[in-house]
């Protein structure tokens, strides 16, 4: 079982000292990956956050949520093995020409350690602030995935969609990873499951309940089969409580990577928390 740390860039981890420590020590203790989160802005007011009962974002609207990519370049410079991932980038809010170049740059700087986790977004007001049509987010997401893959593997690159069009452009450097950077589809809606089945290299519902996971993985598999793709090749990640039994429970439904939040936000407690996960879970799962 691969073990990753989610929310690696937000709150107190926006500070370089603590973020640098997390990246180095997570690598030292055998964590497989670190994952960054994204909201480019938090408009006032905004729709309720779907991930909590009270609709509040974790940490509140003034929590520091740095850009998800810039910290990964910093981590690339001070680590050599740990995978660097977004979990997730809100794909339809960005233009794929920029994201393709940014991810290729990161893949080169990290010697091929990038994973691109993407979501289609949920906060309508955030789309409005960046001037993107919220109701087109599904089609923009699908087109951006196709455009990214074209940019990573073809030179020159042409893409003609409903949302994005470009003809014979050169985007260099290319990623180090042959075939481009793996794209993991985040989210736990049926739409996310179908998108993962149709287009994903991985599927990453940020939930932890084995029954819910089982159901949504079945939806993903059905969509993959319908699209003529091999469902078993789509890597499954999920959240879990940081306990061996909880990890085994999601492993039983096919998950091969679990993610935990950072175990602490002070330097001493962070190290102790990572070491505890290493001894109690990484060594045994």
């Amino acid at each position, binding site marked *: 079982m691969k073990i990753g740390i989610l929310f690696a860039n937000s709150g107190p981890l926006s500070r*370089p000292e603590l973020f640098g420590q997390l990246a180095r020590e997570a690598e030292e203790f055998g964590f497989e990956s670190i994952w960054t989160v994204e909201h480019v802005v938090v*408009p006032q007011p905004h729709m309720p956050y779907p991930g909590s009962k009270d609709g509040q974002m974790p940490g509140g609207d003034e929590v520091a949520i*740095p850009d998800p*990519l810039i910290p990964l370049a910093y981590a690339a410079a001070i680590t050599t093995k740990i995978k660097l991932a977004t979990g997730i980038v809100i794909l339809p809010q*960005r233009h794929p020409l920029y994201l393709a170049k940014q991810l290729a*740059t990161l893949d080169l700087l990290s010697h091929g350690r990038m994973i691109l986790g993407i979501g289609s977004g949920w906060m309508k007001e955030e789309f409005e602030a*960046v001037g993107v049509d919220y109701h087109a987010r599904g089609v923009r997401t699908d087109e951006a995935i196709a455009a990214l893959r074209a940019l990573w593997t073809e030179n020159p690159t042409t893409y003609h969609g409903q949302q994005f069009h470009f003809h014979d452009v050169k985007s260099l450097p290319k990623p180090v990873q042959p075939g481009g950077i793996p794209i993991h589809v985040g989210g736990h809606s049926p739409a996310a499951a179908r998108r993962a089945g149709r287009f994903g290299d991985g599927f990453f519902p940020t939930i932890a309940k084995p029954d819910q996971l089982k159901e949504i993985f079945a939806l993903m598999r059905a969509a993959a089969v319908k699209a003529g793709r091999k469902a078993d090749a789509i890597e499954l990640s999920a959240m879990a409580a940081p306990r061996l039994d909880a990890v085994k429970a999601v492993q039983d439904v096919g998950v091969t990577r679990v993610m935990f939040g950072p175990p602490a936000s002070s330097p001493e407690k962070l190290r102790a928390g990572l070491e505890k996960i290493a001894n109690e879970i990484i060594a045994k799962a």
Partner: protein
Amino acid sequence: MKVGLMFVNSGPFSQPELLAHLAVSAEQCGVESLWTVEHVVIPQGYQSPYPYAKDGKIPGGEDVAIPDPLLPLSYVAALTTKVKLATGVMILPQRNPLYVAKEMATLDLLSHGRTILGIGSGWLKEEFDALGLDFHVRGARTDEAIKALRAVWNDNPSSFHGKHFNFGPLMSFPKPAQKGGIPVVIGGHSPAAARRAGRLGDGFFPAIADAAKLKELFGIMRDEAHKHGRNADAIELSCMGRANLDTIKAFADLGITRVVVPPPGFDKEKLTRGLEKLANEIIAKV
């Protein structure tokens, strides 16, 4: 005189080993700043003339590696402690200022306040076309984006209501480490760039070395600053140049306080020797 290095992300410097070597050695040699360049894509067979070469073509050809301009600076932030990290230039009107504000604030925090945002309004029409943007409104988008960036960096909540960008009230955290936000340096050597620097710039950086032309541009910049009630002397002047003492002294006479030069080599050994020479023969004497 501050001495900076240009083109630190492109061509061979797209490789992390050479970039790291350049950054660490440059800092040791007293180089003040490292500057990255940008083209998100190069449209094949472009016709717009590149303004910095006689043949109108981008150096290195259409297949030259031009990584993103910000991520290499973040990589360098982790390996250095003093050298300033700058874009020279980012094509501002092609990007959404809410993303640029967040990316730059993140980089400023990670580097403990070492960033400079050099911006240009772009010249490659075909690049705007690929992004679905109108090349002809790039000036207005650039002006609005500069104001929007400053609103996001300095206000909480932040709002901006322009013709091209319209948002707020909204929250964007973290803010930059530098108080008052990140310095915005206007690149380019057109009269429009000079006027923009006078109106809105914390600095002006025509990437040319012709003293007569620089003098003329600085005059335009100063007039525009006065017209807008700004103190022209507070606008920092940079230019491109070669590492030559006489040239640098002539630049100093024009009020220039930073000269940015190309990297003195494209492999580790030549870079090491070239940077030592730059430190001893130029940086020690200016």
